[in-house]
């Protein structure tokens, strides 16, 4: 009897150890209950995040300062997507994979102007002499987060805004072969603005909108 009881106890201990040693899915594989989790489909989103991946409240891009010049058109440069203000594209949509596009445009549309808040303005989409903003996404860097890849992503070409012709510029586009879900940081997009000769010295501001569709 005693030997039988010991055998039962041994079987129980072995059963317990067995149950602890394997993942829960295996424990319930033969029962009526199945472990399940619902991962709701997400959406497409774009954000500007800092190095700690926190959304930047009022993102901006600083341009290099230029000195007043009577005769010469000068270039001022900046970088869209600095390490402290990364462009983060998140695509949490469910299958099937669909293409998406990330573009940049003046928030006020084609009639927007660089403005000092007063009467001094100049163009962002005029001729080189009037003021023209060039966006070069081809020199940008795509950094996939987590274990995603940059397969299926295309960077835009170097393009200048031109009123009525190029009001919106592609930064990044994804084909259906891109990861879905996926998340990428895009940094180092080159911005070059021509400053007209004889432009009144002041701090000028332009609002741009990044749009993911």
């Amino acid at each position, binding site marked *: 009897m005693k030997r039988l009881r010991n055998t*039962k106890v041994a079987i*129980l201990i072995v059963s*317990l150890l067995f149950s602890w040693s394997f993942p*829960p899915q295996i*424990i*319930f594989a033969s029962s009526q*209950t199945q*472990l*399940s*989790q*619902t*991962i*709701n*489909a*997400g959406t*497409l989103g*774009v*954000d*500007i995040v800092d190095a700690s991946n926190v*959304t930047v*409240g*009022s993102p*901006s891009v*600083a*341009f290099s300062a230029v000195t007043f010049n009577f005769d010469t058109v000068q270039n001022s440069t*900046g970088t*869209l997507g600095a390490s402290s*203000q990364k462009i983060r594209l*998140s695509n*949490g949509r*469910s299958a*099937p994979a*669909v*293409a998406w596009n990330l*573009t940049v445009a003046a*928030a*006020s549309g*084609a009639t927007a102007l660089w403005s*000092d808040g007063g009467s001094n303005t100049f163009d962002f989409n005029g001729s080189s002499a009037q003021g023209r903003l060039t966006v*070069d996404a*081809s*020199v940008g860097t795509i950094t996939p987060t987590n274990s995603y890849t940059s397969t299926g992503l*295309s*960077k*835009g*070409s170097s393009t200048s805004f031109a009123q009525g012709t190029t009001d*919106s510029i*592609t930064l990044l*586009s994804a*084909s259906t072969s891109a990861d879905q*879900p996926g998340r990428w940081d895009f940094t180092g997009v*080159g911005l070059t603005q021509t400053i007209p000769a004889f432009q009144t010295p*002041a*701090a000028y*501001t332009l*609002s741009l*909108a990044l*749009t*993911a*569709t």
Partner: protein
Amino acid sequence: MKANRCFRAFNIVVVALLGLAYAAAGSAIEYEGLGGRPANPDPNVPNSASWFLYQLPAGATKEDALRIENGSGAAVELIVYPADQTPSSDGGFALKQRAETMTELGSWVTLYPTPRPVAYAEDRRSIPELCQFAVVQAAQAAPTADVSELKTWCGGVREAAIRLEPDQAVAVPFVIRIPDNADVGEHAGGLVLERKRPADEPSAPSGGVQLTTRVGVRIYETVPGDIVRQLELTRFTIHPNARQKELVATVGVLAAGNVSIDHTTTLSVSDTIFRRSSQTVERATQALRGQELITNISLPLPRFGRFSYQAQVAYTDTDGAGQRLMTPTIVRWFVPWLQIAVVMLVAVAIIALWLWRRGRDRGRLKQWRPYVVRPGEDLVDIASRRGIDWRVLAKANGLKPPYRLKAGQTIKVPIGS
């Protein structure tokens, strides 16, 4: 007794694990961020979970809803509005800005973010039906206050300001009304979610660019009729990017019909020296109606070799037949000219140095005089007396190891040393 205790412990563990399993079965994970999607996707229509896809005839009206989700973990204030599609620089999909005038699909959509008037809160009719009812009732001699309120509500809004708490989702109903004169084919636009910038934000005193972010949920409406699906190749180039770090293959296609065309571009790269296919890249994208779409495919810049590049574009035409467009083949040599130039320069410098030293040594020999070795002298003695390295002396006289000198042997030594 011990066995009973073990049974009890076993049961407790099993019950606990079961409890955990049931709890997990009800949980859900949301993706981060702010975004929107169709609230009523049709499982039978591909992509309808991501985009609004309609095939309404001219003059038709349809109610739908946009589901907006805030998975960002912080409250968000945003503006929602419909916008026309506009081509981006590479022919991709973009949407007009809020400040711009909408003249196409963006002007066909009306939002209904507020609940129906109380008197019609339980009414099962769709918004178009209810609003048609309001129009009929209002046309009567003395419309009631409820009808007047309904008629006002039916006007809808062009844009809606919405505040979403963390992890909150709302559905914003809207109605799309296709104009009677809408032409056959595809019309595109979208519903835009634009973040409001903080009101107390400084207006960039130091200048520069201020950024806002927007997300658009595309709307494609195709007015039925004579649909033409035609794609044309417009360009194919291979060039290094501005920083010379990557090679960019650019493929351009034009959707020449009256609808957007989904197509697949396959770029094949072959190494023509070793006669092997080195790479194949595929991109499935969409050319918008009447627009040229430029697809840039980044490739590693080969260091050396001769490579050929060719792209193939596959799509389905008006008759449902598969079509393939082939680009011409572009062949490129890749030679690291800079590295080769550096190596050549170094080689020329080494040869020049060698020639110079040889000439110098020969010149020195001409200025040297004969010297007869005395008994007991060796090379080191003779060199040290003249203040030069014995190796120079050995080399100048063509002496080989072990550099032994015999008494009476004549060698050359520098004059004046």
